[in-house]
């Protein structure tokens, strides 16, 4: 269900991004006559992709399905809470769509910076709807997180010690803790913004002694862990897939697990690197530069451990493995540009330009979505009982891989040249790279259509899946049960003796 919601949202959000790219294909206003509409699209695209595609897909979808399977639990700890969590999210999506259609819509960007988001500059209920939507989505995430942590801490099968858990489970555990700590802060900040808008409080309004910069601190205290919330489950999936198709255990299992913990932890102390130009003290900026760069170390450990897992392996490039390798490639490119952006001195040039857009689309849009796709191809047999068509899957990979690179790589150049983000029209000098970028969007869109066709083919005419279609490399518990996995699997608790990852 989460995955269906995620795919539907992806189509909405992706459609919007496609319109944005079409608008930006050439200089001048193409067909979005009202720049406010453009801003609303940008806002909605961001919110939908973050809260309704990547999070439900990776966490809600694969997490809820495979965490209990992998640790040998019959189901999540609180199945009913899980259900509530899903419907909250569905309601949140409806609210967000309502927000987009109300009045002139929320044109604030997904960051909702006041004063632009306050009642003076965005009167009307659109932003209120947006805020409530995030509240619901946040509540849904918190419930989900509680459920995950409880399940993982209390319901492991006998013998499944913490250090024997598959890395995907580790990644979900770290993610759940990040959610638990970060989302309430967003909820608090959103509530304050809501009362600022409607009840005359002045938490973020300078006229009442508030400070708009405080919003940015609170938002990014949530916002930065949020990006790890999106990418850490991806790390988990990639680890499983790389290990399976290399027919080797994960290299440096403990290092991998604790690298995720480290990334999650450091993720909480780097938030102000989103705010280098806001007027922070120079020593503060220096601290955030260093703290941010340190994240590169555990991230590097993960990248090299994946490569070392592949090294000496007997690698079969089935579709999931292709997407996983694609993920690593894209994540490296997005990762090194992250190190560039960490430098406050240089960030002055790049802040709020297309360089940032390129960076986070490489690590989130592309890498996280590649992880989603990896997970889909890897587990679809287990979930539906039917295997996907292999050749079409491979074509899908190459189309998407080429498409996203053509789409996002030129945006680095645009950013360095100084093109600001969130503008519906740009100086003529930026035309060339924008055109190429839009062509990339076209290729990617073709890939997406092919993906829809593959989903339909799999469901309608896919071959029946065996319990374990991947052979000796697939050692985690979910492959020991039939496909599709029956409800309340592991009623009789399996006993785990061999360490799955070593």
């Amino acid at each position, binding site marked *: 269900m989460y995955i269906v919601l995620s795919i539907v949202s992806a189509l909405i959000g992706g459609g919007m991004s496609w319109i944005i790219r079409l608008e930006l294909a050439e200089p001048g206003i193409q067909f979005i006559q009202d*720049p406010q509409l453009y801003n609303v699209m940008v806002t909605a695209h961001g919110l939908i992709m973050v809260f309704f595609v990547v999070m439900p897909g990776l966490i809600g979808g694969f997490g809820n399905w495979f965490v209990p399977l992998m640790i040998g639990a019959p189901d999540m700890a609180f199945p009913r809470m899980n259900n509530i969590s899903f419907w909250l999210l569905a309601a949140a999506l409806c609210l967000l769509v309502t927000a987009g259609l109300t009045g*002139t819509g929320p044109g604030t960007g997904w960051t909702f910076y006041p004063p632009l988001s306050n*009642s003076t500059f965005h009167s009307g209920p659109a932003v209120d709807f947006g805020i409530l939507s995030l509240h619901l989505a946040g509540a849904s995430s918190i419930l989900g997180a509680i459920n995950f942590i409880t399940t993982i801490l209390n319901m492991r099968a006998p013998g499944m010690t913490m250090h024997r858990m598959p890395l995907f489970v580790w990644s979900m555990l770290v993610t759940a803790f990040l959610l638990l700590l970060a989302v*309430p802060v967003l909820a608090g900040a959103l509530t304050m913004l809501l009362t600022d808008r409607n009840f005359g409080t002045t938490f973020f309004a300078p006229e*009442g002694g508030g400070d708009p910069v*405080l919003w940015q601190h*609170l938002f990014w205290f949530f916002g930065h862990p949020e990006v790890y919330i999106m990418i850490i489950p991806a790390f988990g999936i990639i680890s499983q897939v790389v290990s399976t198709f290399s027919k080797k255990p994960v290299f440096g299992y403990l290092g991998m697990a604790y690298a995720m913990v480290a990334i999650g932890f450091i993720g909480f102390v780097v938030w102000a690197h989103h705010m280098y130009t806001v007027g922070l*003290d*120079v020593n503060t900026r220096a601290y955030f530069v260093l703290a941010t760069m340190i994240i590169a170390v555990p991230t590097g450990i993960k990248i090299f451990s994946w490569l070392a897992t592949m090294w000496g392996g007997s690698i079969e490039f089935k579709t999931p493995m292709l997407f996983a390798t694609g993920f690593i490639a894209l994540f490296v490119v997005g990762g090194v540009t992250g190190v560039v952006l960490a430098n406050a001195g240089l960030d002055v040039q790049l802040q709020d330009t297309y360089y940032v857009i390129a960076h986070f689309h490489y690590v989130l849009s592309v890498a996280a979505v590649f992880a989603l796709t990896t997970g889909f191809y890897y587990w679809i047999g287990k979930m539906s009982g039917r295997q996907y068509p292999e050749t079409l899957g491979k074509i899908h990979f190459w189309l998407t891989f080429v498409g996203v690179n053509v789409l996002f790589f030129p945006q680095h150049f645009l950013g360095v040249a100084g093109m600001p983000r969130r503008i519906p029209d740009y100086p003529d000098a930026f035309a060339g790279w924008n055109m190429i970028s839009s062509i990339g969007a076209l290729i990617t869109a073709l890939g997406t259509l092919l993906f829809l066709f593959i989903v339909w083919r799999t469901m309608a005419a896919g071959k029946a899946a065996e319990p374990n279609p991947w052979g000796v490399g697939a050692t985690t518990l979910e492959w020991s049960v039939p496909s599709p996995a029956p409800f309340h699997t592991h009623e009789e608790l399996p006993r785990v003796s061999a360490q799955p990852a070593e």
Partner: protein
Amino acid sequence: MDASDRQTRARRGRRITALALVGVVVGMAGLAFASVPLYRLFCQVTGYGGTPRVALDGQAGGADAAGRSITVRFDANVNPALPWRFKPEQNRIQVPLGESALAVYRAENLSDTPITGTATFNVTPNKAAPYFVKVQCFCFDEQRLEAHGGADMPVSFYVDPAIAEDPDTKDVSTITLSYTFFRAAADPSRSAANLSRPAVTTTAGTPNG
């Protein structure tokens, strides 16, 4: 120990974990709200983000032994929702380090109704803020001006001589003190004024409130 007993125990374990996690959530949300006063306090104590210190005892810190001085510039802003004229009486003054000085801003109400305003302020460069000590000022106090009335608003301050010793701030030769006047949040005509904000039209786009 039979199976049902084990199940009850497992369920209780889950419940305890879940409750502890709910506690974490409530704690974090509380922290978000607590951040508002904490942030303000933090800024005042450390001078972070250009918030000048406020002297509690009303005493200057003692003159600088070396007789150095610094330039202080005065800057004024008025939010468009407030029909006031607000200007410093002096563009800048030269102040010996450690000695208290007095500057005056002049505010006039240009409208036909009495209006209450309130001012925020900061000091640039940010790193100089911890050394800029205000002894007395009108900041954050609500100021009411009668229709077409005016008032002088004095600020007295001194610059801590330690500014010349700190390696970070040694290069600072000029400090800018800036005030921005807003219509007070409690002012009854505030919302009406906001609604009538003018919108600028460019040919490229439609104006939008």
